[in-house]
């Protein structure tokens, strides 16, 4: 079902272009022209974040930090085994995938913890990454309350998701 949606949209768009007698080829070229300069703008931010996230993981600091906050997580109904996932998720998508796979192989995919991890990963985003990349082509330096609000909303969603799983 999901596999068919995107190609279907594609075909529809191409057919509409033909009906309206527009040149898809030149439109595509024109659109993708800005991609490399966009990347050039995004790249320094990408490197700055990923460099720090990698040391954060490899130094074991993320592991100890999750140990320290896990009682708080437990109190909110999120299994303490998933604290590191919650901690890394807003920082790095690839890092969180690695932790998710580890959770699956350690506790089992269909266990409560495994399903909780799926909900947490599936309903959250790389908040820090997004908020840095989005502003890479603007003058904005101060993001105001964007990150706290996004993190709080995500946390509330995850708590609810885990609570629903408990009664399911």
């Amino acid at each position: 079902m999901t596999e068919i949606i995107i190609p279907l949209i594609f075909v529809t768009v191409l057919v509409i272009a033909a009906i309206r007698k527009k040149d898809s080829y030149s439109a595509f070229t024109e659109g993708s022209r800005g991609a490399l300069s966009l990347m050039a703008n995004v790249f320094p931010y990408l490197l700055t974040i990923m460099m720090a996230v990698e040391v954060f993981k490899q130094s074991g600091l993320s592991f100890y930090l999750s140990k320290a906050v896990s009682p708080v997580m437990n109190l909110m109904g999120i299994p303490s085994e998933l604290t590191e996932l919650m901690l890394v998720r807003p920082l790095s998508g690839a890092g969180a995938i690695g932790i998710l796979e580890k959770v699956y192989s350690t506790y089992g995919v269909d266990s409560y913890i495994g399903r909780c991890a799926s909900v947490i990963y599936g309903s959250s985003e790389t908040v820090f990454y997004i908020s840095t990349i989005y502003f890479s082509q603007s003058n904005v330096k101060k993001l105001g309350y964007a990150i706290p609000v996004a993190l709080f909303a995500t946390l509330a969603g995850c708590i609810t998701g885990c609570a629903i799983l408990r009664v399911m």
Partner: protein
Amino acid sequence: MSKVWYIMLLGSVSALLFTNPGQAVTAMIAGSHAAVKLAIELAALYGFWLGFFGILEKTGIADFLSRLLRPVVKFLFPGINETGRKYVTMNMAANLLGLGNASTPMAIKAIKEMDTGSTRASQNMIMLTVISATSLQLLPTTVIGLRATHGSASPADFLLPATVATVLSTIIGITLVKLIGLLFRKRGENREHKKEKAALQAPCRGLLRGSRRSQ
């Protein structure tokens, strides 16, 4: 963001200083390597999706979609201009379809369009960030695929709570941004009221004083 980054980096490198100092630079360079790899991958994805958006724009489909979602976008982003609205619509559509990498270039363009030269993020910019960050994703395809490869009996079993979680987080996010925006506006108005009152009172006081003197 810069504070979080600074604390994370300082903490991590200091921790490695005591445990394994040789690993510090290796890890940081490994992270930079990963960034270059991701950048090349993203350049391809951005190029592809921006090209596709080029067709959407040329055929007028982008305008049509933007007009269709106009009431929603106008409510969420008051005072947004025509081009910005188009980008925001595309960003939200891509997010809904679970195409995170297609939504990013649209968001960057939308924010550029909203930019007024100020260094402080406007409420509309914050709204866009929060909506994307709470990811109203209807089909978390990555997780379903991962669960299947790990031999799950029912890979889509978590969809209901995940959907509730993501809808709830998006609603909370939107409400909070709107509320905080209202709060700031009220505070701003109060300040202006005080100024106006002071401005009004000053000449009155002068008059009173003047009349007293004449008596």
